[in-house]
């Protein structure tokens, strides 16, 4: 797989204040990278540096092998992006917006425009003025606009902002389908739980520094698993188990152990005359995994 985006040691100063410290990460085709961090961590600034919207103080960005600083037009030609909010001309209709955007690229046909309209499901409202759209519809039109020229890299800055759960679900499906078509997607959010079901890689940024980048699969594997156990009583359980559990109520506990060790613990409980009614493996959220990994740093 080839690298679509390479971010190397990106630094940004606003005056004397350094807002980005050596931010680095890569993105390959078909990969969906979640760029996660609290508000003000430097997500949008990083994205703006990648897109040439702000000058790079130090470091380099390559898109499709082209240096953004030196070969801007070539580098940016294969990028579709929404930064902060979908930037549309309110006094034009949806279709007029798409037509206008398409004229900046070569060879976009009327069919291409119809294709993206269908892709984001705006067929019925496309000839209305954008000022009459809901935020969710604008988001979708924004994505349609950024997909017009069949980009290899799609950059979405907080695309779920203002979307209702249904909208978030639709967007998730849309992005998964795009990734299947080998588009690399960089998606930023301050809310990890929204992204965890579909991103392939997570990159966490805090105070302008990347504190971890890893594949979601690995992350989940590495961490302990939570098991909820219902039993007859929790009395005296502190004498049986170490401190890797929590009492939920008088007849159930949560146990945090490696998956392979659960049998050992169940046996121990049975040996100590406890009746076990049910053992349920609880999915660990990505956020919890991160908290574990980063030693208890809350992300938001």
């Amino acid at each position: 797989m080839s690298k679509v985006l390479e971010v190397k040691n990106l630094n940004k100063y606003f005056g004397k204040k350094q807002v980005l410290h050596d931010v680095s990460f890569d993105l390959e085709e078909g990969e969906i990278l979640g760029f996660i961090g609290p508000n003000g961590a430097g997500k949008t600034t990083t994205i703006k540096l990648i897109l040439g919207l702000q000058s790079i103080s130090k470091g380099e960005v390559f898109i499709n092998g082209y240096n953004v600083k030196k070969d801007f037009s070539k580098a940016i030609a294969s990028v579709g992006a929404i930064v902060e909010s979908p930037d549309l001309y309110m006094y034009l209709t949806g279709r007029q917006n798409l037509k206008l955007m398409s004229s900046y690229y070569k060879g976009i046909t009327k069919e291409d425009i119809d294709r993206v309209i269908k892709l984001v499901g705006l067929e019925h409202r496309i000839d209305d003025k954008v000022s009459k759209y809901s935020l969710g519809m604008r988001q979708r039109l924004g994505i349609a606009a950024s997909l017009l020229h069949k980009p290899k890299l799609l950059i979405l800055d907080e695309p779920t902002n203002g979307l209702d759960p249904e909208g978030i679900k639709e967007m998730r499906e849309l992005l998964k389908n795009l990734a299947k078509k080998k588009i690399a997607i960089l998606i930023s959010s301050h809310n990890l739980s929204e992204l965890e079901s579909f991103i392939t890689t997570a990159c966490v940024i805090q105070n302008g520094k990347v504190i971890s980048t890893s594949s979601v699969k690995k992350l989940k594997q590495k961490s302990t698993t939570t098991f909820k156990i219902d039993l007859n009583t929790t009395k005296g359980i502190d004498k049986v188990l170490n401190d890797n559990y929590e009492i939920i109520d008088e007849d159930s506990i949560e146990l945090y152990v490696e998956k392979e060790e659960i049998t050992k613990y169940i046996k121990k409980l049975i040996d100590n005359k406890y009746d076990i009614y049910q053992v349920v493996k609880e999915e660990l959220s990505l956020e919890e995994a991160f908290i574990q990994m980063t030693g208890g740093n809350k992300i938001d």
Partner: protein
Amino acid sequence: MIKATKNELYKIFHKKFIYLVLIITVVFTILFGVLDVLSNEDDSYDNNINMSKHSMEILETNGLATSSDYAYQKSLVEMYTLLKDRNIDPKSPEAYYIQNTLFSYINQYNLLLVENDIKELIDNAKIEMDKSIKRLDNFDWKELVQERINEEQNQKCTDQNCEEIKKETIRVLEYRINHDIPFTNTNASSYIEEYISLYSQYINVKDSNDELLNYNDLYEKKQLERQISEMQYMLDHEIYTSSFTDANTGNKMIDEFSYPNVMIAIVVIVLSATVVSEEFSKGTIKQLLVKPFSRNKIIISKMLAVLITSIAFTFAFNIISTVIQGIFEGDLITIFGNDIVYNFNTKKCIEISYIMESLIAFIYALPMIILLGIFVFALSTITTNAPFALGMGFGAYLSESVFQLLIRRASLISYAPTLNYNLSPYMFGGINSIKELYLSKAIAVDLVSFVVLFILIIIVFNKKDIKNQ
């Protein structure tokens, strides 16, 4: 670049603003036309008689029945009654004779009458008046002109100037006879009268040494030379209309093109102030900057779009207001005619079509549109603050008249771009009424201002970081 400019134009022409200004223009021009028609006084003889009678009544009730005002109003009533009774065409030589020569006799007689002067004087005045009225029975305007020629010839002159004025006056009077132009209330006749009065002014400065004159006098002299030359040309070519005698719609069209109207300034300033800053305030600039176009291309395409729109709007505006005015004045056809233009360099007149002259005037006024636009554009690009750029733009537009007043106190002000950005005073070799302002300086100031602002815009836009919301 063409594509990017086309896109910018697409955006501009999808906003309502320009259409709104055009509609306002049409509405206002029609409104002014209608008001003009409504305010035209009823010039019929009956109306004039009634008005003067009314004035007489007021004077009588105020005990002023013996005043010269009363005599004047009484004379007017008698004069208009005469015109009415004899059914005289207001544009005929008779009407002119009655309203000028005969009126003075009537007024003289009435004045003596109301003042109850010596009977002998009153009788004499009556005899003179009746004699003048009698002339109407067998009216021959050429005879009257010949009498004036004789009067002129008998006039004794003591200096060269008087001789020359006398000669020219006789020439023009003979011209009337030869070209069949009686004294009337028509353009041709009043035009010839105006020529003679200007000629007497001109003859006094004709031989003065240009180098010894102060600037104001030199300016006046050149203007007189121009007017005399134009009028002589027109007499020679039997054309009797000009911008001095009556401003026809053709002349008004040239004026419109020579000095961009306030509506045009509004459009240029608002467009220049918003075309960049709006993209910043609405965030759409980000979408634009992530397109495979260099920032230079993007900003230059915006400048071009503003320029093209301003020019298109200026033409649309001027043509619309000219056409509407022409319809109300009833002389729209004049715009397809020719104007007489004086060339200050060759000191000769040429004929040029009003349309061509308007285009030339527009080219001379173009630096004003370009500089006003780029100034506001630069402010809007640097600050991305539309209200600020708008305010400064209107300030600059209005500064011209303020600077003109201040220029006497500080000659450095003569380098202000707003005093130099309209080149129309210099058309056909003309000079500015202000000494410190001249064409070469104007061109230099305009070029320097343009280059400085252009470079500033390019540098600032290229360096600009798109701040986080």
